């Protein structure tokens, strides 16, 4: 049987093999000869060449300077008392890498004055040490997370003992941490609430997470609202070891929510009032106006042929003005009704719709209305879209300076919306009126020149916006005329419907 001699210690080859597997290195120091011997594992650990002679001093050189004093202290103490030592330290290899080592040694009992013999082992614990560091880092990160989280945290174990309370929670309770941690949960919650919550806690410990909201009275009579979550904490084996209680103060959120609800209710009420007012006012104003119209008509009939003074001319003006007021009231009524539900959603062929509108409006002979093949089939309510297109086309006809022109209506799809365009080659609208034209009772020309209530575009804007769309305008091609564009939220009628394959692409100029 082969043997290796390390100092005075003889180690069999088998033992050596076993030691090598465990990663345990062995060394020996004989005070009588001053010989320091160590096995291959030790040499490897301390980065010492296998064939070079070694010494205690050489080994010490490899110990991290910060760890050396403690190491020497431990060894000397052991020598002085013929005892043992155990210490963890770092070895620095020649390439600068660091090994964590657990070193243990034993001084062989001896009489005073006799030379000493020390036997020792070295174990590489670098891996374990790295894992420990990782764990510590993770724990620190979790703690930072818990402390920076804008809520209250608390960990409770299976026995209803509080094991962790976040700083904010401590602050919130207003008691020292020691009075909370490692104390029964009932002390934190109060006995009454603990009893009340007991069945809930049991469910959480059985593995179910629970979330709820709760108002808590504060000193001074106010109340704060919390969103509370209890979440079970499971071991790797899946056993519930306790639970996390998380509370978030949502008082401000609730207040904002309430204020918002109130504001919305107020707004919708005042909106309704306004609509109601406009409706009633215009409706009730129509009755006396109708009477005036009738009376003017009779005067006109009875005074037929009467040519004294300006009677006929004035009667004509009176008739014109009452007609204007009537139209104004009709438009005001239409405006106030725009918000009301207007019919069922149907498959609407907008190409046909524009054709119908053109027929109905009966433009003067010089005006041509072109409905482009791009006008789609949509799923939408007919009445509001018809009114929008009719008002826009009618405007284009009415305001055309020469009564000789072309009005083009075309469309394209923009995601959920259809984009419509009504383009004329008229006088155009100066850009500074871009907001004004959509306001109520606004006309850009004297009413005696172009009859209009100034409500047409206001109605159009309201209808478009009520349908989730937007309306704007820009000059037409070559800077002539105006292109009104609006979006209309409506899906295409269906994929199976005949599509207009030869649709012209839109020239979007703005």
């Amino acid at each position, binding site marked *: 049987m082969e043997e290796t001699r390390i100092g005075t210690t003889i180690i069999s080859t088998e033992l050596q093999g076993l030691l090598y597997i465990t990663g345990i290195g062995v060394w020996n120091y004989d005070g009588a000869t001053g010989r320091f011997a160590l096995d291959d594992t030790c040499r490897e650990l301390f980065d010492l060449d296998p064939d070079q002679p070694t010494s205690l001093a050489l080994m010490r050189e490899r110990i991290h300077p910060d760890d050396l004093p403690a190491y020497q202290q431990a060894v000397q103490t052991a020598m002085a008392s013929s005892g043992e030592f155990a210490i963890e330290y770092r070895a620095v290899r020649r390439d600068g890498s660091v090994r964590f080592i657990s070193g243990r040694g034993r001084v062989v009992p001896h009489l005073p004055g006799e030379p000493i013999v020390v036997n020792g082992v070295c174990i590489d614990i670098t891996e374990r040490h790295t894992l420990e560091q990782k764990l510590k880092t993770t724990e620190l990160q979790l703690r930072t997370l818990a402390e920076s989280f804008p809520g209250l945290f608390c960990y409770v174990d299976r026995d209803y003992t509080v094991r962790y309370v976040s700083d904010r929670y401590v602050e919130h309770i207003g008691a020292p941490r020691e009075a909370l941690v490692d104390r029964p949960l009932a002390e934190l919650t109060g006995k009454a609430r603990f009893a009340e919550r007991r069945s809930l806690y049991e469910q959480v410990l059985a593995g179910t997470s629970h979330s709820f909201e709760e108002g808590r009275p504060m000193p001074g009579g106010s109340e704060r609202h919390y969103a509370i979550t209890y979440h079970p904490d499971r071991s790797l084996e899946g056993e519930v070891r306790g639970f996390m209680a998380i509370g978030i103060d949502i008082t401000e959120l609730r207040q904002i929510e309430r204020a918002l609800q109130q504001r919305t209710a107020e707004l919708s009420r005042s909106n309704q009032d306004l609509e109601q007012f406009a409706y009633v006012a215009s409706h009730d104003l129509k009755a006396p106006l109708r009477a005036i119209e009738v009376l003017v008509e*009779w005067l006109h009939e009875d005074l037929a042929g009467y040519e004294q003074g300006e009677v006929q001319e004035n009667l004509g003006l009176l008739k014109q003005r009452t007609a204007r007021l009537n139209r104004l009231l009709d438009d005001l009524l239409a405006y106030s009704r725009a918000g009301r539900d207007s019919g069922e959603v149907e498959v609407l062929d907008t190409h046909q719709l524009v054709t119908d509108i053109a027929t109905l409006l009966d433009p003067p002979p010089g005006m041509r209305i072109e409905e482009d093949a791009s006008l789609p089939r949509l799923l939408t309510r007919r009445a509001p879209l018809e009114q929008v297109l009719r008002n826009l086309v009618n405007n284009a006809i009415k305001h055309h300076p020469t009564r000789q022109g072309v009005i083009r209506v075309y469309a394209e799809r923009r995601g959920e919306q259809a984009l419509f365009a009504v383009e004329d080659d008229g006088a155009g609208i100066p850009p500074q009126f871009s907001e004004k034209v959509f306001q109520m009772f606004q006309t850009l020309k004297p009413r005696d020149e172009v009859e209009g209530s100034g409500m047409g575009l206001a109605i159009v804007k309201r209808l478009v916006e009520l349908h989730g769309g937007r309306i704007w305008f820009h000059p037409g091609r070559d800077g002539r005329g105006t292109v009104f564009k609006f979006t209309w939220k409506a899906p295409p009628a269906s994929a199976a419907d005949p599509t207009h394959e030869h649709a012209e692409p839109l020239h979007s100029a703005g």
Partner: protein
Amino acid sequence: MSTPSRCILLADDDQIDTKAFVRALQKLGVERQVLVARDGEQAWDLLQTAPALTPALIVLDINMPRLSGLELLRRMREQDTARGTPVFVLTTSDDESDRLDALELDVAGYIVKSSLAAGLQRALVTAGAWPAGERQS
């Protein structure tokens, strides 16, 4: 022997509406007496105190003080008054619900105020009082 033509009973509180009614009759060339009541109660009194009157046609406005046209009609139906005379109601073009209520009370039809002459002519035809000037026996 010819008897004077039976009258038309109009219940309407609006002076201008009443005038319009008379003018429309004139335009149609109808020469019949129009008995005007200013509200439902007055019309009821006329029907009660002068039963011999028996109008050829009764025309009722809906909105009137004291007793509305529909209330009057309801009372007439309950008390079985002027059963043989066709009743028309005067409405504006958008009073859909009033029209439906009137139909329930078994009216002969309605006259839309904005096309008074045409409506009145139809009513007279229904009442057998057309062509204008024809004498009832």
